[in-house]
């Protein structure tokens, strides 16, 4: 997905001189073509996330479009106040594009895991929160939103799904409407595992790439069903719960650090978010 981010930024920069990339010493080699083409519009600011956001806000104040990129927890958790004040409160738009979603860096341990970002960023007034699940979603949504003048968050993943969803910003995708009594709702790359888990089960399936604004209309269509939110982060469940009086269950993260190392699939299996565990959970739900 990072390569598609690079290709999209490079393509957009050709026609939009306002785009300026501010990196936190990650993905720099990957962007060597961009640096060569636009040396005065790429800055490897350094390992200083607070400064990246402050500088981005300053660029934005003067009509430029900052694209601020580094590892998810370091910019979203360490520098939350900079996002809140420098961008949101000051109404300075810009794009935060992160790598290392949820347990992409499973082997690095809990310091590099990121599952609060979507939940905390959606709380900030004026913020848009996007969790692209596929490379196509990333490209379509980035092109659609990068110049909107608002703070917009894009959470990249190294494990995208390959399902074609025809993405439109702010719109959920109803992948299965079987008229069932149970509706599975999920977001981001986990869709691949979720679809595998429930493809032949009698459930509805609704998918989100945009966490904020959440598509209340799509949720409301299924308000009379039992909603099971399957997600490898926080934030989607809370966003869906904005629609009142839903019957909801969360199948997601435990209240503990996942410090088992290994690969993404190892963590998902350990916390019950691999296809077999999801299926087992849904089958039990359907029995009741």
């Amino acid at each position: 997905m990072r390569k598609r981010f690079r290709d999209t930024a490079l393509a957009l920069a050709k026609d939009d001189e306002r785009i300026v990339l501010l990196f936190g010493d990650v993905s720099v080699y990957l962007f060597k073509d961009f640096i060569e083409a636009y040396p005065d519009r790429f800055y490897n600011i350094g390992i200083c996330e607070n400064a990246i956001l402050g500088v981005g806000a300053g660029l934005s104040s003067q009509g430029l479009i900052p694209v601020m990129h580094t590892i998810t927890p370091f910019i979203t958790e360490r520098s939350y106040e900079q996002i809140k004040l420098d961008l949101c409160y000051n109404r300075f738009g810009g794009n935060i594009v992160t790598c290392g979603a949820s347990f992409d860096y499973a082997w690095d341990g809990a310091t590099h895991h990121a599952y609060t970002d979507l939940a905390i960023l959606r709380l900030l007034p004026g913020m848009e929160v996007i969790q692209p699940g596929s490379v196509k979603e990333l490209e379509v949504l980035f092109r659609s939103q990068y110049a909107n003048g608002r703070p917009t968050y894009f959470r990249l993943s190294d494990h995208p799904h390959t399902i074609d969803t025809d993405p439109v910003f702010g719109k959920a995708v109803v992948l299965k409407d079987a008229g069932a009594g149970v509706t599975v709702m999920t977001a981001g790359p986990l869709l691949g595992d979720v679809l595998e888990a429930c493809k032949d089960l009698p459930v509805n399936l609704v998918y989100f790439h945009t966490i904020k604004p959440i598509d209340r209309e799509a949720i409301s269509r299924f308000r009379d069903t039992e909603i099971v939110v399957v997600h490898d982060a926080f934030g989607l469940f809370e966003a869906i719960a904005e629609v009142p009086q839903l019957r909801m269950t969360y199948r997601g993260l435990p209240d503990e650090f996942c410090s088992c190392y290994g690969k993404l699939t190892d963590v998902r299996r350990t916390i019950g978010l691999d296809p077999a565990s999801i299926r087992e959970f849904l089958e039990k739900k359907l029995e009741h």
Partner: protein
Amino acid sequence: MNPFCRGIREDILKIAKASGHGHIPSCFSVVEILCAVYATIRHDPKDPAWEGRDIFVLSKGHASLAHYCTLARLGYFDIGRVVSFGAFGSDFGCHADRLKVPGIEVSTGSLGHGIGIGVGMALAFKIKHSGRRVVTVIGDGEANEGSVWEALMVADNLKLDNLTVIYDNNMSHGRGLQIMNPAEKLRAFGCRVDEVDGHSVKELQDALAARPETAVHAVVAHTKKGYGCRTMVCDAYAWHRRCPTDEEFTRLMEELDEETV
């Protein structure tokens, strides 16, 4: 005392008294700094959004009342509007909102933010090959924040010679983490540093006019919290957020005209 600066202090005292809000000593320490900045940068009170203007960012946002009173005396708006300072529905909060007050470029309040945004503004002018400059004021207490030094490192690395950082060294943190050698630290972070009497408009203006060509410019302004009123200088901590009683107000107004502050 410079009559213009005296007038600003009088406005600050009157509005703080009327509103019950203030940070008066912190405001009083930056009055000459604000006068010198606006006497130096390119700006137009009749057209605050003029595209050719230089940018001033008050990173130590709790001195907002001093900033409002300065902008009012420069003609950005009528001082009468500032009397609602801090009141429900007022445009003039105890920390400024850039969307409400003409001349305010950044909404500040939480310390350690304005300078980083100022670095981005200075970079934007470099990218655009513009001759505009950025001046920001940070407080010595604010310099406790790591984000201040992150911003300075980045500014040095980007060689932002269009950025001036004024360090209001009003010794506000003797009871906490007081940085005793700010000029030395700023030099270590790549700045070219001038040290001036922060209550001398002339010294400040001379420093602001003599910008280095290849480095971030830092001006350490040695100031006193509460400068202008002997009572507040002598007991700055007690007055940090306090507003005067009727009796104290009368005395403070008299002290503005005393020779020794």
